């Protein structure tokens, strides 16, 4: 495995050591909460987009008995998952081009992954295409509670969910534009705070964390931009109209 030479934050040991294999605030707790709010039948065809090492896929299969599989663009993370479980149902693919036929899925989970994808509109279009009518999209992600701070985030020199964070209104508008009807929106920023605390405990301070994962010299500006955007975390469930 290659050590953290990339600036892809979610691949870095500094983060993974803390979050474990569900590389996001909230972990499987939020996944289960979504399913409690919008239950799916046994055997439902479920795709985890941005599945990483596949912990969620395993959980969806084992605990919920869904016909679940996952995809991720990161060969690194997929490999680490396969090392743990050779039979893991995951493939390498990008969210912008899902290798799935139209109207095949009962549900899509995109947890802390939409914000790291380059073209959110394209991805949502693909989600719309591959979901059956009435299928659900479970989105949990970072969002910027200060809409004015969004543009500063876009210029962050890191490949992390924070860079792609949108404001609540932007998320709602995009979902609406791609034929989704938002059924649930919940703020779970506590989870983000908890993750921040974990990173402090692991790295010594937030300052040191940012120094580890950003290019040299840019830690302070990164921190400022993030503070200004007032990041939070949300869980949203949308139904394909």
């Amino acid at each position, binding site marked *: 495995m290659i050590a953290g030479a990339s600036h892809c934050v979610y691949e870095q040991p500094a983060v993974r050591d803390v979050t474990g294999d569900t590389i996001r605030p909230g972990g499987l707790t939020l996944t289960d909460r979504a399913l409690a709010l919008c239950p799916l039948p046994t055997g439902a065809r479920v795709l985890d987009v941005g599945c990483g090492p596949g912990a969620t896929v395993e959980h969806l299969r084992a605990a919920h008995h869904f016909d679940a599989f996952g995809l991720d663009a990161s060969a690194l993370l997929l490999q680490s998952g396969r090392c743990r479980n050779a039979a893991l149902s995951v493939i390498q693919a990008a969210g912008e081009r899902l290798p799935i036929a139209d109207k095949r899925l009962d549900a899509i989970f995109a947890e802390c992954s939409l914000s790291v994808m380059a073209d959110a509109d394209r991805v949502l279009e693909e989600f719309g295409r591959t979901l059956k009518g009435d299928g659900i999209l479970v989105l949990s992600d970072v969002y910027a509670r200060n809409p004015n701070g969004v543009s500063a985030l876009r210029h962050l020199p890191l490949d992390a969910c924070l860079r792609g964070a949108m404001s609540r209104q932007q998320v709602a508008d995009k979902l609406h534009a791609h034929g989704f009807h938002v059924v649930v929106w919940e703020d779970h*920023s*506590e989870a983000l*705070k908890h993750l921040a605390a974990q990173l402090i405990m692991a790295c010594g301070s937030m300052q040191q964390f940012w120094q580890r994962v950003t290019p040299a010299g840019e830690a302070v500006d990164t921190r400022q931009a993030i*503070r200004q955007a*007032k990041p*939070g975390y949300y869980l949203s469930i949308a139904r394909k109209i």
Partner: protein
Amino acid sequence: MLTQSELHQLEDKCIQECAPACAAACPIHVDVRTVMAEISRGDFCAALKGLKKALPYPGIIGRICPQPCGAVCKRGEVGDAISLAALERACADWGDFTETPRVLPKRGKRVAIVGGGLSGLTAAFDLARKGYGAVIYEAVDCLGGSLWSFPEQVLPPHIIHGELAIVAQVGVQVRLNVPVHHDGLAGLRSEFDAVYLAIGASGETFDLALNEQGRIYIDPATFATSQDGIFAGGSLLRSVAEWSPIQSVSDGRRAAISIDRYLQKASLTASRINEGAYLTRLYTNTQGVAPLPRVQMASPAGGYSREEASQEAKRCLLCECMECVKVCEYLAHYGSYPKKYAREIFNNLSIVMGARPGNLFTNSCSLCGLCGAVCPTGLDMGAVVKDARRTMVKQKRMPPSAHEFALRDMQFSNSDKFTLTRNPPGAARSEYVFFPGCQLAGSSPSYVERVYGDLREKLGDVGLMLGCCGAPADWAGRVDLFQSALASWQSQYGQLGTPRVIVACSSCYQVFKANLPGVDLISLWELYDTPGWLDTLPAAVGGRPSAVSVHDPCTTRHESGIQDSVRKILRRMGYQIEELPLSREKTECCSYGGLMWLANRDLAQAAVRRRIAESQADYVTYCAVCRDFFAAHGKRALHLLDLIYGRDLNELAERRSPGYSSRHENRVRLKRKLLKDVWGEDMDGQSSYEDIRLIIAADVQERLEQRLILVEDIQKVIEFAERTGSKLLNRATGRWLARHRPDNVTYWVEYTPQGDAFVVHNAYSHRMEIVEDAKI
């Protein structure tokens, strides 16, 4: 918590965003301030662009505008009003901005404008940009109307033609040499969807209803005439003497708004307030601004040169209010102003789940009310903030560490260790009771004894109450703790037969005055001002300063009687007073107020440093904490009681503030001494931990103060460790390390025994708890 409507009322009170006087008085609301800033920078292109947002023909208006702005220009109070028209002309002369204005897509409706003067031109220009087909019917062979009546040197023809070209650029059609008389109006009205009459002072009235002056009647808000779809404006509304080019431009603009709404079948009257000229609510302080005369033109016919224009524009005061921000370190620190702050606070309170970045902001205000005293509309941010803190507490979202240390201090002052309620010895009731407050007792306990003795001598039956009035709880938004402190005080007070309460501390005074209206209060300082009193008291001997500056504690803001008494006492004692610029009603807070010192240490220090820099003279104040805070930052500061009872004022002015632990100790000792000396009683035994003797070096003491760790906290740890044996040994240093968690904080102490005492080497604390810690 504030409702949306209460928030709007609050936001409305802050006038910072109101237009400067010039822009408000300008009938077309040119953004003068921005344009002035751009001209001063020499950026005429940006200035011209900004000007053209409101004014399509700056080269014309710049030469002939009667400048209603001049009468209200604030610079006119300190020198000459800004020559705005000349500067507008300078923009047209030196700026380059030829972009065609944006035109909306065609809507299919058409409007006829009768008359090609300023009013008609402006209406046509605006309507064309809004996407309507605008056609001007002009009686003579060129546009401009009364513009041609100006002498050529004032308004050259080529300027008129050049500036009016913009009208054609946006697609307005012009029919020259087509006069329209009263018999032509009906036809025009049926051919077009609306008509605007801007014929100037010709006298033609088109069979429309007339007003008392015999001119076409219009609704003053909408410019609608008596006939549906026909509007009128411009100089036809006015006498020759009242004629104003800029007013005509404004009429045209406003009529265009009406016609636009008319054609869309929208309300003609909704939200049209301040469309024309109005008087702004903005207040701008010109005190201390050096007067400057108008910049002269080297060649008046040519107007201002670039350099001259720049100099003239620099005279603009760039009016804004910011009165409160100018005097407050807190308001200035966050880089904004109350209208925005109120919304920030409201938004922060509305966050139901997740992080609240506004918490520190809400906890950093000293609640001193200075902003309210200087604000032209009386907006008191302190009141808003205090209410917000109460809401945070109610919502269970107040960060525990913000105020806890101060609340524990208050709890200590209201515990058996300090509280005392006594009639004077031998008396069954008191005529007066002295309530010195917790801070004076903590800082200068010997003065409490002296004062009490002198009060008894002069007034007779004076009882004594020791305790805390509850101010810290009030400031922290803890209504529960505050109410219970007040209730407890009242019940103790009741035991004494409702005497007059002599209060030494102005915070106590403010708390009681606001919350216990039935209690008869008198300030200690008003008593000491009684004729004859001071003559019998000793005055300090050594080190009298020649002049002093009086710092009024912020809680005396509205108590001019107390402020007067203090000054009279000082003068009677022969002191010369140099008043601070911000004193009495405008006094600043030392940062004790609102627990600012605890919630935001850095900001508090900045506030103190600001205050102490305001005069070289020694400060005299009459609040123990103000005095101590100033002295802690190296300012020579004296308490009024120092001047009355002290000996060496030099020494007293430089006396360091006693630490937190010392304050506790002073209070306990004071109670014990008074009980013994005055009432002949012994105080109850100490807690076991108080027997622990400690040896603490100066540098360690300093560290403990910084970390808000009290001597009693350390005593508790060591007592616990020695009693239970639960402690660690560092074999390399031979020192013990023990910990104890009485409440919400775990204290660790590194110590070694020395004789019957313990040497304290270090101590630290944390709030996080070990889950699965030792079973002891």
